[in-house]
């Protein structure tokens, strides 16, 4: 276990009122895993991360990170973690190599060793082509790789990555996933936040789903999906969704029903037996279908089941 939190909470007070950003987060992150925080924007993911990275003081609760107590020994925590913020962290006029050397020096490493580590990081993160140019000339993907290289230059036991692939093109994104996996394979624990379902699904060993400052579900992607037994049927309807919902609500083969903007989502035990029954019921009531789709439960279905909202609909989730 590399991170353990108990009842972590943070409330922001401003003139506009108070916001309970994080309301009692309990979680355990195991050594050597990629742990993902999934949730819409504003769910409290970044606030939790900033508390764990010693940038914000929690209002309540406790946390142990890499064996150090967050509240009593934040200095010790800083030595053992790396943190990569969402918005970048480099000076425009300075090159990646200079930044890497400088960053290592900030952790007390001597000059020769800092140079050696920078050289190693440039190789490992494939920064050779641009490492000696000022960072203001970098592309988004290049910049993000440098940010992460900076975050792990002191070989921390755990690294926090806040939305590491937001704003990246698909190729840079795939590249970034490889980098994150490589860090884990080298023995580092990785804690990432994301609002991308596919990223949580493909990259994370374990996922905590967060909404309104609380963790609403936690487990491996497979475990979470197993909570949603059976299949999911999405029915596309033009404006007749409320009528269809009323009709199907009481049907014995429908375990659960969610009304979407343009249709319904039905949780059933078996799609093969339910679809003909759904079609018959709708046809009998004279409701025309725009589309019908059968799929295995996704993380979005888990999110929907827990919060009553689709992650795709809340904010810019994709």
């Amino acid at each position, binding site marked *: 276990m590399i991170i353990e939190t108990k009842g972590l909470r943070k409330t*922001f007070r401003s003139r506009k009122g108070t916001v309970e950003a994080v309301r009692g987060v309990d979680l355990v992150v195991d050594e050597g895993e990629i742990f993902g925080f999934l949730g819409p924007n504003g769910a409290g993911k970044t606030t939790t991360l*900033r508390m764990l*990275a*010693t*940038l*914000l*003081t929690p209002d309540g609760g406790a946390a142990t990170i890499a064996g150090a107590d967050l509240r009593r020994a934040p*200095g010790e925590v*800083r*030595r053992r*973690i*790396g*943190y990569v*913020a969402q*918005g*970048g*962290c*480099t*000076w*425009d*006029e*300075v090159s990646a190599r200079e930044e890497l050397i*400088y*960053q290592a*020096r*900030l*952790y*007390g490493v001597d000059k020769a060793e800092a140079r050696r580590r920078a050289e190693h990081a440039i190789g490992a993160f494939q920064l050779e082509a641009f490492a000696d140019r000022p960072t203001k000339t970098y592309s988004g993907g290049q910049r993000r790789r440098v940010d992460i290289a*900076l975050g792990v230059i002191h070989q921390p036991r755990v690294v926090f990555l806040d939305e590491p692939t937001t704003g990246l093109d698909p190729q840079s994104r795939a590249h970034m996933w490889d980098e994150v996996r490589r860090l884990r394979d080298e023995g580092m624990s990785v804690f990432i936040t994301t609002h991308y379902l596919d990223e949580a699904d493909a990259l994370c060993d374990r996922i905590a789903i967060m909404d309104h400052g609380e963790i609403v579900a936690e487990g491996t992607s497979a475990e979470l999906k197993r909570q949603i037994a059976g299949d999911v049927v999405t029915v596309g309807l033009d404006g007749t969704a409320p009528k269809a919902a009323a009709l199907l609500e009481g049907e014995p083969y429908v375990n659960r029903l969610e009304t979407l903007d343009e249709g319904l989502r039905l949780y059933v035990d078996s799609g093969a037996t339910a679809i003909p029954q759904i079609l018959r019921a709708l046809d009998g009531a004279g409701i025309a279908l725009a589309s019908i789709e059968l799929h295995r439960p996704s993380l979005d279905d888990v999110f929907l089941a827990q919060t009553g909202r689709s992650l795709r609909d809340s904010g810019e989730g994709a």
Partner: protein
Amino acid sequence: MKLVRDTWMVFTRQMTLVLRNPVWLIVGIMQPLYFLLLFGPLLKGALRMSAEDAYRFFVPGLLVQLAMFGTLFVGFGLIAELRAGVIERMRVTPVSRLSLLLGRSLRDIVTLLVQAALLTALSLPFGLSVRLRDLVLAFALLALIALMLSATSYALALKLRSEDALAPLMNAVSMPILLLSGILLPLSGWLKRVGEWNPFTYAVNASRALFAGDPGDANVWKALVIVTVLAVAAAVWAARSFARSVR
């Protein structure tokens, strides 16, 4: 020891940035140069002094003005750094919080002293003369002013986090302080009585006493005491702002 090392690290990085983009260094020295060249010649007639006396009156004040305007606006650079994320990156490292301030203020002091030395050297042909011992003391006073004002500027920048809020505040504060310090012309009447509450009045008078070769003048020790106390207070405030978790 760690504080010294960390401060040096922060300072050297800041100096690197200044030297890679020295345009602000040049802009900073332009204003006092304009005053020296375009305003100074008027003083001789206006104050009915000899040229030497006029410059001995004017240049020490100009140096204090340089210290004020050269350092009061350093917070703008910090806001750019906040936006770039470098401050947050540093705050996650074990680097000393005080060094984040001291390294930056040290850069401000060094750049100020370079500018002040240049301005002093350029004033010599106009008839200015000063003893080295007195000049060193005057520069020490300038360095303390720079620490006080740069720390204040950083603390305000960390609080306001926006150039749009910082600029009007700085202008609103700096202009009356400048005018009530007797930098441009000697204060008289009620302005003089108000000016006695302005720490910069003491700094300007001290600077003038030193350039007049009178380090024993009461203004000198008063200015050093007042500015040292304010500089320490400002540094504590700013260092705490660097340490505090702000969102």
